[in-house]
Structure formats: structure tokens, C-alpha cells
């Protein structure tokens, strides 16, 4: 994906999904072998949806983005139950981007706010960890026409990133 070779990216994701296919029919067999192994496979399958959703963001496929990001968040919530972790914050952020692609800025901003809230609640997480959903929230508000709120969010996010990386850094998005 980082190579912008999106056709190859999609074909590799589909290949990974094909290789994980038996999991859908053999969960009991896997559980007998090891719960840990079953969880590893389930994580793989979740990441198939996560990767495909992220790819869809890059190639402007709104429905593909929404379908895959929704499924990724659902599978993650199913696994975590009432718990929260960083990946759940990422899942809500990606879902917010998918809604933004589908021109639903209201839903996207809701998702970004949930993502920020989760990341703020996690112990041991740096303030900068929430900068991604914050940036995206700024865009969501901008698209929604809430320009003053958008500017405030961008200023807040910029301050966080300057603390983490310095002023006008050239490394943080490398």
C-alpha cells in the first residue's frame, strides 16, 4: 500500500483471506489445538478487513471502505467485549474516515470523537496517540462547515505533534 501499487495490494489481501478461509469452517478444531492459536487466526482475519478498508480509503471506494471498516470494528468489539485497547481506537478512527468518504460528516465526527475518547482513557498512552483521530475530526468539522471548531481542533492537534516531534518536523509522516 505504501508503494501505491494498489492492484497488487488488493490481490495480496485477497490471497491472505483465501489462506484464512478454512478458519471459518474449523474454529472448533482450532480451539481444540489452542485458544491462543485461534485468537491469532482471528486477528489475521480482522486485519484482512482492516487492510482492505484502509486500501479503500486510498483508492476512493466509499462502499468498500464502509463495509470493511464496519466489519473490522464489529469483529474487534466482539473479541474485546467491554474492554478497550489501542486497536479499538484505531478501528473507530478508520470507520470515521469511511463515513467521511461516504459524505456523512456527522457520523464521521461521532466516530472520531469515540476514537479520541477511547485513546484518552487508555493508561500509558501518550497524548500524541490521539492525534490521528483529532486531525480527522478537524477535517470532518471542516467538511460539515463548522470552521471555527475545525480550526480549534487543528490548533490543538498541531500543539500535540509539536510536543512529540518538534516544530515543522519532516519525520513524523515519513
Amino acid at each position, binding site marked *: 500500500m505504501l508503494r501505491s501499487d494498489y492492484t497488487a495490494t488488493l490481490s495480496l489481501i485477497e*490471497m*491472505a483471506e483465501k489462506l484464512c478461509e478454512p478458519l471459518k469452517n474449523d474454529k472448533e478444531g482450532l480451539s481444540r489445538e489452542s485458544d491462543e492459536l485461534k485468537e491469532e*487466526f482471528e486477528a489475521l482475519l480482522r486485519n484482512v478487513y482492516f487492510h482492505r478498508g484502509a486500501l479503500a480509503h486510498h483508492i476512493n471506494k466509499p462502499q468498500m471502505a464502509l463495509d470493511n471498516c464496519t466489519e473490522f470494528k464489529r469483529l474487534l468489539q466482539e473479541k474485546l467485549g467491554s474492554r478497550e485497547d489501542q486497536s479499538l481506537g484505531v478501528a473507530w478512527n478508520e470507520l470515521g474516515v469511511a463515513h467521511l468518504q461516504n459524505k456523512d460528516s456527522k457520523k464521521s465526527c461521532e466516530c472520531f470523537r469515540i476514537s479520541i475518547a477511547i485513546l484518552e482513557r487508555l493508561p500509558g498512552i501518550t497524548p500524541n496517540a490521539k492525534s490521528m483521530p483529532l486531525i480527522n475530526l478537524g477535517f470532518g468539522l471542516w467538511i460539515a462547515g463548522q470552521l471555527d471548531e475545525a480550526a480549534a481542533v487543528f490548533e490543538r492537534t498541531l500543539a500535540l505533534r509539536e510536543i512529540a516531534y518538534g516544530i515543522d518536523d519532516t519525520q513524523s509522516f515519513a
Partner: protein
Amino acid sequence: MATSTLASLTDARTSRSTGRTGLTTPSIAPSQSLRDSPAAIHLPCFVVPYDQNHRFYGRMDVLSKIWNALNPRSPSNYGSGGGGLRTFALSGAGGIGKTQVATQFVYEYRSEFDAIFWVHAGEIDKLRRSFGRIATALGLVVADTAEAQDEVLTRDLVLSWLAQPSISNKGRDDGQTVQVSWLLVFDNADIPQLLDDFWPRTAIGSVLITSRDPFHELSDPARSGTSHLAPFDTSETADFILKITYRENDEEDRKFVRAVAKIIGGVPLAAAQIAGSIVRRDMTFAEFVQEYNDPRSHKDLFRQPVGNKRELGYEHTILSVWGIEKLKVSGDLLDLLSFLDPDGIPEHIFQDIKVSTDMGNFIDSQRTYENARAELLQSSLVSRHRTAKMLVTHRLMQDTVRAWMSDERYSTVCVTTLQVLSGAWPYEKEFGFIKNETSRWRLCNELYKHVLCIRSLTARLSPPLKISRAHIQPPRLVLEAAW
């Protein structure tokens, strides 16, 4: 005793270069053993089992190198005195054209030697029979006699004659003894030890060896020439295909001939086989390329025999010509290599392999790997860049190997190859959420093309019905590569 070449002293040369081919038959059947009658030696003598291939293409530089090394009148090989044994070893993968080059050489330089002998050196029985034919053709024994059937005797007679290849020219007033120039071709000498009892150690003459083994023990770089035949490049392959299909003037086919050439990958035998198939089925090159894109077509294509044995010197298919079926310790490695990008396979991926696989006798140690690699190198099925520690192989060979796998084997090898790559892949510390650790990128870049190569081959892949720990690495690798 003064010596000179036969060329200047006998009338016999006037009968050479007449275009006569095949085993030379003595013009006069001697009535008794001629061992003690050197004057009855039949010269010139041309014992070559193949016709000249009038569609021979290219390789001019190699032919010139061989001539420079084997020229019987050149004293350069062995100092000022001349004489001694001149050797040239021609190596390369099966089908790359070694026998064709040797055949072309013996026809092109036929008039430069008084005697040329072709020896099938791949098996001991063939060596014996070849020497028996030479003994008969030279007139050292009489055809169909008990002596001619005695393979030890005929071998010794030929070696003795090669050691002192002269005849008494009793027709001359001065009774001068004539030195004879000869060329011995050991074709397909893939097992050097077989030549031990047939090697003209003390002889004065020229020896051309063809072998898959690029490190032929008999080639002494200090005293002989060597050449490793490389595949044709794409332009050469394209020209060769147009020539052998007689389609040089077909504008439509000329547009697609480079695509065909890329499929063939510069292996002349494969070009000949595939071209034959195209012509027999009256296909255009465009139609062939379209058909070849479906891997299911490969098996039938590679199964077809190579045509015209008299010209090409083969009676087998591509698979048998490459000797893939005869590999003893490298079959698994070759199978793995057939799923990787052939232009540069880093050897480090085979170090400390930890895979769980159904492949039998799998590479389980560095020593096992090195033994397998040695066999493939000796067969010229792969070559190695020692500095970069990279293996290089042929695309068509890969297609052939995969075409012969059962569906079950295909899936097993495919998944195992992914496991091997996974063992070398620099995973992110926290899987799933990429932190763009740029220090990984160089290695990722090196391995990525191999993951893509496997991706292009997954149409035949059947995932396992039930998965276990052995199956977790392949999808994990593919997913990381996707990012």
C-alpha cells in the same frame, strides 16, 4: 622424424567437405585386423551422429572461442613446442544449446581436422559403443567381427591411436610419417568420472566437452578454454523463433514475437519445442501467448517431444532434457525455487528454515541446502552470484517444474515457500498496526517481489481444509507485504 599435417601431404583431403554426414563407413572393407597396418587407417574420418542444423542461430562468439582453443595448428596452448591435449569445456543447462554448438563447430571446422569423433558421454554403455564405432570407422577393427564387439579392445585401440595419431605415408618417396590432427567431442559429459577410462591422457589432439556441470573437473583453466552458455537475450530469442518458424515476413507475428520470446526465456530447445507446437497447430503468436497465460496449458505443451532428433540431438521433452527427474537431493529446493522470482533469489531465506510442511526430505540444515544447491548448480538449472549470494534460474524451467506437480503437491510447495519467506520477513513489532519502521524497508523490498511472484501463482492453490499452527505464517506474511 619430420612431421607435418596431413592436409599438405595426402590426396585424401580432396574427399572431405563433400557434405556426407553420419558415421563414416570405410570405403574398403579390410580383410584382416589393421592394428599393425597404420597405412590402412581411414582418413579423413568423420564420426558424427547428427546432421548439420541449417537453422542454427547465433553463438558466433562461442564458436570462435572454441576454435581458438582447439585449433590444431596453434602452438599457443602448450608453449613453443605445440602438441599436447587441447581442451575446451562448454557448459550450460540442458536445452541451452551445447550439443547444437558442438555440432555446428564440427561442421564449420570439419576441414581443419583430419578426424572428428563424436562420443556420447552421458552413460558408460554409450561411451563404450561410441569408441567401438570410432575403432571401426578408423579401420582399427573390422566391422561385425569379434574384435569389433570387444569394447575393452576397441577402447584401447582408439586411445592408442589418439596417443600416436600418425600414419606412414608409404606412397611418398621420402617415406615421411604424417601427423594427423583429430578432434574428440565428449557430449553430455555430466558425470566426469565416467570419462576416466576414456580420456586420451597422453594424446596430441583436441577435445571438446559439453556438460551441464559448469565446474567440469576435466577443464583445466590454465591449459584449456571454457565457456558457460547463457540463454539467448530477448532479441536473439525473437529472431531465432522467427527463423525456425519461417515467419520473418509475417507482420502480425512479428508484433507478438517478443512476448513469445519472454515466455521462452532464451532457452533454444524450449524455443524449438514451442515453435514446433505453434506451427503444428497453425497458431498465431498472439494466440499462443493468450493460451500460455493459462497455466493449465503448460503440461500438455511441455509433454510434447522435441522434433527432429537428427538435427537437435534430443528425443525427449523439456522436462527430461533438463534432467529434472534425475535429481537426487535437490528436488525440493527446485520446487521451492519455482515459486520465487527467478531473477534473484536471496540465499539467506534458506538459512535456519523453520517450517512445518508435508514436503518430504525438506531442507533441514545448511548442509542439506548446500548439497541441494550444489546439485542444481552442477545441472546448470540455477546459477549463483557468489558476491550477492543470489540464485538465478529460468522462468520456463519454473513453469515446467510447476506444471508437473500434482494439485496437492502444488499447494504444499506454495504454502511452504510462503513459510520460508515468512521466516526471513522483518515483521513489525506489533502486528496489524503498521508503525512504518523504515529500517525494515530494505529487506521488505528485497522479499516483496517474491511474495508478488507467489501471488501470481495462486490460481491452483487449494487452502487446507483444516488449519493448524503450520498455516498461520503464510497469510500473516501476505498481509504484511500488502501494507
